[in-house]
């Protein structure tokens, strides 16, 4: 075999070179193993667990003999546990391929192995930890390279070999599990660097090395558990459990109790029970001897780890009877200088006295901070029926990732023996407190890469409108009958503006209410841009009148004011700023709007055609002190009833007819091209546009024409229903701010901006598209053309149809007396330019912007404002 490439099969890994070869073998085997099915893997996992279990006694004997620590019979339990409980915990867990599938939401999760695990095995639990880590690796399709502790290498490797042989026999690729036969610092470091993940069980130094290696690591920390015995505890149960836990394998499980902190009222009873059950209370001289023996240069003396008291005492220079189970040192100091405060990993306990529960927790905390063990384990003995709060107080205080109640902490901390929802594990994470990246008991999930496949889904959409929508000329009194006959209302609060009130518009309502014997009061102090102040005044009036029904009569201002008053009346505690907070998705918003309608039924009656506010979930209020407008949007604000009676629209003056009529047109257009448009809103929006083209000029020129007024009223409400569900767009955003800054009527502002916005939206290559799952690609041009065609526009190409549509809209504007530019309305040039930057930013920030098919840049909004001001590009 002179070919340099063909190497001798490596039998012993005792050098960097042989380690390299072994690692390559493991990797190769793992690459093949990664293709195995869940079924194949589970068969191998089971076979390996069985084999490990069969070997539990020989491996236990080997471990004790080689390390000179622990007790064979207890190590047998550890080996058995590592095989049996781990197998049981994961036998049905999916770890290969698709582990989760949700076809409805379109999410699939796929589990893949990480690669090669570097497993650092301690000397305290060599065979059980080796079995544990190997089994986890097998279940997750990973390879594993074991770095044993020099003092326990033979037994560690023996355990690994048994698992490997069984796995291969059951079908695993040969060489999937490997180990370092002659461990050294250099090779441990290499193992850590070459692996894809490290499972590091050992002292803090080793764990730190793992985290510093550059490979993702799951480490553990040192334990230093205090068992706090509260005065309410069952002393006999507590002490015996602690002794049992402490003596298990001579105290070598990291979660085991290191100190007892007993409340002074039960201290003597604890002490007595300890002695009764075979523990030895050290005298002062003996304590000092132990101190000197326990810590050598501040570090735990390896010679005492996992030893029985008789051996420890001898090492320290005194004698105790052979059958003593635990050496107990009564101490007071919790400082780092007190050796008894440290982790002992052997059959030594410190015993502290505490004057109170608080003091006991203080001591436990101090011990962790001063002498190590943060993040690991703590335990509490307490009456869990009558003193439950103490459990939560303790849990709150202790910075440990395992908090065991009335449980022996070594056997309890490893999970599944004393609590069956506690993951069984021999690698116990200590969280950031212990310098770990894991704060729970380590299991299969930490050894997998999970891939999530997410398919595109569209947001659920909706169509909502008031419960009752009544329309027809003269329907108002008929609709109002329901107040008595169906709804049984007794007290009506009528909100309207002073103009409508003074001109007798409320008469038809108040007469009807009187007829029905319903009490009422009128609030008519509503301004054109309703303010928070007047809404608060109205709410106050409501609170003293205590209506069970609110009727808002008027244009957008009165209806909006009515809605806000209604909110303030029903929920005086609600925070305005929270309610007005911007959202991207109305169903996912941070703020939960309070439930409306608990005190009063809300009826909206429009007197213009119109804002559509009678069927929308929106209300805008101005803070009079800052001039800021707060848009509220929530379906809780949807009126319960809307009454659209043409009789109320008949006397609207020309200016109002034109402005509100065109506002309705913009509502319909914006709802149609909105990213949230649906077939339900489309149908209504298009019909609204058709009706407006056909009837607005007539309604404007001859306000007495009933048919035209009726159709306009219908169109306005229809457009309202459309945008109540599909929302609006940047035209309204800009119109809102234009109105706020330069006091143009809302409908006029919209009219002045519409065509420029339409051109902007219609771009086939917009700078940015609106973000909404159902809006797949820019197609506003196409959508505008659908509107155009429905309104009778014809043409050869979309571009042609679009231009003709714009011309048709411009013609309508001219017919109803809308001027051409913002400047034409007397807005001062300097004032306009001075406000431009802020106005553009505010428009961008308006809630309506989000539904625009084209997501605007502030500079683009600015440009549109300028164009609308001058009438040409500037």
């Amino acid at each position, binding site marked *: 075999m002179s070919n340099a490439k063909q190497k001798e099969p490596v039998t012993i890994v005792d050098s960097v070179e042989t380690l390299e070869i072994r690692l390559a073998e493991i990797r190769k085997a793992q690459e093949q193993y990664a293709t195995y099915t869940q079924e194949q893997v589970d068969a191998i996992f089971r076979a390996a667990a069985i084999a490990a279990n069969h070997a539990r006694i020989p491996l236990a004997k080997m471990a004790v003999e080689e390390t000179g620590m622990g007790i064979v019979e207890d190590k047998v339990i550890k080996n058995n546990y590592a095989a049996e409980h781990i197998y049981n915990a994961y036998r049905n867990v999916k770890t290969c391929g698709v582990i989760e599938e949700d076809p409805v939401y379109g999410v699939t999760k796929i589990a893949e192995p990480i690669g090669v695990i570097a497993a650092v095995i301690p000397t305290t639990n060599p065979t059980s930890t080796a079995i544990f880590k190997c089994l986890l690796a097998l279940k997750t399709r990973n390879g594993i390279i074991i770095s044993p502790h020099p003092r326990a290498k033979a037994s560690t490797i023996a355990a690994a070999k048994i698992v490997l042989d069984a796995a291969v026999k059951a079908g695993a690729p040969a060489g999937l599990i490997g180990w370092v036969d002659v461990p050294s610092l250099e090779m441990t470091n290499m193992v850590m660097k070459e692996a894809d993940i490290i499972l590091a069980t050992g002292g803090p130094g080793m764990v730190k090395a793992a985290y510093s290696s550059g490979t993702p690591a799951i480490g553990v920390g040192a334990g230093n558990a205090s068992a706090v015995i509260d005065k309410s505890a069952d002393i006999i149960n507590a002490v015996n459990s602690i002794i049992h836990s402490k003596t298990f394998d001579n105290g070598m499980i990291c979660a085991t109790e290191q100190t007892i902190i007993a409340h002074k009222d039960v201290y003597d009873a604890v002490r007595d029970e300890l002695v009764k059950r075979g523990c030895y209370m050290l005298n002062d001289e003996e304590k000092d001897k132990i101190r000197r023996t326990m810590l050598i240069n501040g570090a735990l003396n390896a010679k005492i780890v996992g030893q029985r008291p008789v051996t420890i005492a001898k090492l320290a220079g005194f004698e105790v009877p052979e059958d003593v189970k635990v050496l107990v040192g009564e101490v007071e100091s919790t400082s780092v200088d007190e050796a008894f405060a440290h982790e002992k990993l052997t059959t030594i306990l410190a015993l502290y006295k505490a004057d109170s529960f608080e003091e006991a927790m203080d001591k436990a905390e101090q011990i962790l901070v001063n002498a190590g063990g943060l993040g690991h384990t703590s335990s509490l003995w307490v009456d869990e029926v009558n003193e439950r709060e103490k459990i939560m107080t303790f849990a709150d205080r202790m910075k440990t990732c395992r908090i065991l109640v009335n449980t022996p902490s070594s056997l309890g901390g490893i999970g599944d023996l004393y609590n069956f929802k506690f993951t069984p594990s021999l690698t116990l994470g200590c969280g950031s407190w212990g310098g770990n990246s894991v704060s729970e008991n380590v299991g299969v999930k930490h050894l997998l890469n999970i891939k999530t496949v997410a398919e595109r889904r569209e947001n659920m959409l909706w169509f909502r409108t008031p419960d009752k*929508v009544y*329309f027809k000329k003269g329907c108002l009194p008929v609709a109002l009958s329901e107040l008595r006959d169906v709804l049984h209302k007794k007290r009506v609060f009528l909100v309207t503006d002073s103009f409508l009130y003074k001109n007798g518009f409320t008469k038809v309502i108040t007469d009807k209410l009187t007829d029905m014997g319903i009490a009422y009061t009128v609030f008519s102090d509503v301004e054109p841009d309703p303010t928070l102040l007047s809404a608060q005044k109205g709410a106050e009036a409501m609170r003293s009148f205590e209506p069970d029904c609110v009727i808002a009569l008027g244009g957008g201002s009165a209806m909006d004011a009515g809605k806000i008053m209604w909110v303030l009346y029903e929920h005086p505690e609600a925070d305005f700023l929270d309610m007005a907070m911007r959202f991207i998705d109305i169903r996912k918003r941070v703020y939960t709007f309070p439930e409306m309608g608990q005190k009063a039924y809300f009826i909206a009656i429009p007197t213009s055609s119109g804002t559509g506010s009678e069927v929308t979930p929106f209300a805008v209020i101005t803070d009079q002190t800052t001039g800021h407008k707060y848009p509220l949007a929530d379906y809780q604000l949807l009126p319960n009833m809307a009454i659209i009676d043409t009789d109320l629209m008949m006397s609207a003056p020309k200016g109002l007819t034109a402005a509100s009529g065109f506002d309705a047109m913009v509502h319909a257009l914006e709802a149609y091209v909105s990213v949230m448009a649906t077939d339900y809103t489309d149908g209504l929006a298009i019909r609204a546009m058709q009706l407006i083209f056909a009837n607005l000029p007539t309604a404007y020129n001859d306000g007495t024409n009933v048919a035209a007024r009726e159709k306009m009223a219908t169109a306005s409400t229809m457009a309202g229903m459309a945008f109540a569900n599909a929302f609006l767009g940047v035209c309204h955003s800009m119109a809102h701010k234009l109105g706020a800054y330069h006091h143009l009527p809302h409908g006029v502002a919209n009219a002045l901006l519409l065509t420029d916005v339409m051109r902007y939206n219609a771009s086939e290559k917009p700078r940015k598209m609106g973000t909404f799952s159902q809006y797949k690609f820019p197609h506003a041009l196409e959508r505008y053309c659908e509107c155009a065609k429905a309104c009778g526009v014809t043409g050869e190409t979309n571009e042609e149809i679009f231009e003709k549509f714009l011309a048709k809209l411009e013609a309508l504007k001219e017919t109803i007396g809308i001027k051409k530019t913002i400047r034409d309305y007397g807005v001062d040039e300097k004032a306009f330019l001075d406000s431009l930057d802020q106005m553009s930013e505010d428009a961008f920030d308006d809630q309506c912007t989000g539904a625009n098919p084209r997501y605007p840049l502030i500079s683009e909004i600015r440009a549109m404002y300028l164009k609308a001001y001058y009438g040409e590009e500037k």
Partner: protein
Amino acid sequence: MADVLTFPVPGKLYFKKGSLPVALRELRDVYRVSRAAVTADEAMRHDGRIDAVTRVLQDLGLSYAVNSTSFTAEAAIAFGSHETWDALPETGLRIIIPTRIDTIGAKAWLGADMVILDEDVLHDDTPLPVQRWQILDNARRSLKGENASDYTLAWAVQAMRLVFDGDDSAETLLHAASLARLAYAAAVPGDARMGTEDLLDDAAAALCTTAHALEQRICGYAVTALGDR
């Protein structure tokens, strides 16, 4: 002539593929109910399609029973065809989840608090020509209803538009069918009394065609549907 007209629609109309679990979440988060009584067609129980609903109720932590006469609940869910919708109790929260594009029984939708249209559970294996015809038929008849209005016309016309110009995707037909059905339910009173007016001319104008041409076109779909049977 009536003194007043209304445009009744279901309290909440929710739709989109996959919307069922999202909409039902409101039972816990908005309505805060703890018990739901589900009425389902036997077929749904047999082939497990009912799981689409029960699994969600389980995840929400609600108690529920399927087709039980003795289970009292704050919410009633009708999952299936019109027989289940008609069986909804008068009081309490009423939710309809249709699984068939039935042409009848739409009135029940108007009384429901929530109607969920999810194509994951709403299938129709009726041949396409028949589906299209049924939609047009419903839409056409809604124009003659006693309570027909511009609102019902708007939806009837949209339904027709979708059949004439839309793609034949499941989603498009589902919405066209719903629009037509809702228009019919709102326009035609319970006793199916027809009004004296016929809004066909308005509908035709809305579609930029003549009444005659529109009738002809609809006829064409009827013929195709018949031919398909």
